[in-house]
């Protein structure tokens, strides 16, 4: 696999972040519940997302993992009929109940989707657009930021000579890395990733996974994945969602190793052993 190539990535200078697994909460979620036009799909979710750590969320299809991620950057605002209750504390602010500038919030909390969704613009414009939008007027500065972001995701060498071509002409894996670069270029604090590898072929998937691993310590990452092996490989913390009576709940949350090797809840045990789901 392309591990060798991956190791030549640069993610910029290494910040002396809080070492992982010394838990300092970055986001505190308390008793979160979400319903779509009165039908509750998620309830009683409470957990902390720790700074600089990768938190993996697993669980069967339809149990509300995507919905949970969307509440964190208030994308649920735009879901029709969605009602969110509970508390999400971020930087001393309650994202759900205090007045929040969602545009700024989403700059600080980036999101990557299951299906790569580059804009139908050139590669360059894909990265330039969010920068311009968030007030980076200086052309040289933009240039440097974009180059850095593309290098961070290991895409620079592959595309530096065709930055003006359409982003849609990239392969799936390249598109997904471009989307990650697009989020990184805004220097977010937290990255939400919704099954970032599940639409990719195994080769691209491995490259993207490698990249996620390299984000650890520098960013707080919350990743939803169906691939249990992947969760094990990359995460510090893991949460397991399950659906009871069509309502999603967080069944178990803890250090990744504990959850996978010594699950407390029998549903968790059944799920990770493959007996269920």
């Amino acid at each position: 696999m392309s591990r060798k190539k991956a190791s030549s990535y640069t993610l910029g200078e290494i910040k002396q972040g809080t070492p992982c697994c010394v838990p300092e909460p970055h986001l505190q979620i308390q008793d979160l519940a979400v319903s779509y036009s009165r039908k509750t799909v998620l309830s009683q979710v409470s957990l902390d997302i720790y700074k600089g750590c990768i938190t993996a969320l697993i669980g069967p299809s339809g149990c509300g993992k995507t919905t949970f991620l969307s509440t964190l950057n208030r994308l649920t605002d735009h879901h029709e009929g969605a009602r969110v209750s509970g508390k999400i504390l971020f930087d001393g602010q309650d994202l759900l109940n205090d007045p929040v500038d969602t545009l700024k919030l989403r700059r600080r909390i980036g999101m990557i989707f299951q299906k790569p969704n580059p804009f139908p613009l050139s590669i360059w414009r894909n990265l330039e657009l969010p920068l311009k939008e968030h007030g980076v007027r200086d052309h040289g500065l933009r240039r440097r930021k974009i180059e850095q972001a593309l290098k961070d995701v290991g895409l620079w060498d592959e595309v530096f000579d065709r930055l003006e071509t359409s982003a849609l002409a990239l392969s799936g894996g390249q598109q997904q890395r471009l989307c990650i670069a697009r989020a990184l270029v805004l220097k977010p604090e937290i990255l939400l990733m919704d099954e970032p590898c599940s639409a990719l072929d195994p080769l691209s998937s491995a490259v993207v996974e490698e990249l996620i691993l390299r984000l650890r310590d520098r960013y707080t990452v919350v990743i939803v994945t169906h691939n249990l092996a992947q969760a094990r490989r990359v995460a510090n913390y893991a949460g397991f969602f399950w659906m009871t009576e069509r309502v999603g709940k967080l069944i178990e949350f803890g250090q990744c190793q504990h959850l996978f090797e010594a699950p407390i809840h029998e549903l968790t045990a059944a799920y990770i052993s493959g007996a269920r789901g």
Partner: protein
Amino acid sequence: MDIKNIDNRADRRLSALLVLLAGGVALLLALIMLLLLNESWPFIAKGWREGTWLGLFQNQGWYPLEGRFGMAPMIWASLAVTLGAIVLALPIGLAYAVFLQFYAPTATALGFRLLLNLLAGVPSVVFGLWGLTRLVPWIAQWQPPGASLLAAILVLSLMILPTVALTSAAALAAVPKELISGAMALGLRRKTQILYVVIPAARSGIASGTLLATARALGETMAVLMVAGNVVQTPSGLFEPVRVLTANIALEMAYAMGDHRASLFASGLLLTLLVWLLSWIAHRVTRITKEKRQHV
């Protein structure tokens, strides 16, 4: 699914029958072209023999009874009217579609869409009637004679607006939701999302709708005849009357004999060739966008 393999006899027979029908379509176009050519042949041949056919495209005036058949002013007028209508209808129709799709609350959107369907259903004679009795006098108050390029453009743009707006709305609706979520997740403003993400993503749909509308504008007859003033002259200002090719046919066909009639068929041929060109462009456009999207 590819259909190359047809498994059994019944299907093969059906296929053969349907191929015949499809061939009929090709025949129809051939027949139209053939008849137009046949009917206009005396005129074209004469022009060719006498070397005057270039005169068609020169400004010698349109006086069929005096044997002068200069079509150039009408060609320019057709193009000017079409272009003007598109330039007006495209941004407004697109804005209407965006409003419908992204801004209007559901109930309002429903009402607005209904109105659009209504507008699409209004026959062209009715637009002509309205233009003749309301719009033209209104312009004349301000710049006589009123019946003018401008009046034609206004009436036409109103007529093709539903086409532009409905096809654009469909194209906008087909933009993947993931793309919009992506834009939101980056904290882009609504305006940026629409201008730089949604519209570019929908551009091929919008373009093909626009080309459809262009063909419609080029081919419209009655409404233009009723408001354009119908003077055969190269358009030189918005308030000048003009005559378009289609209106010319409708105005004179009933009366035309001999060479005059043949020249009208020749202008029909010319219009068809213009449409041919237009759909060729449309095919190029869709092919190019398709190629661009293909993965390397």
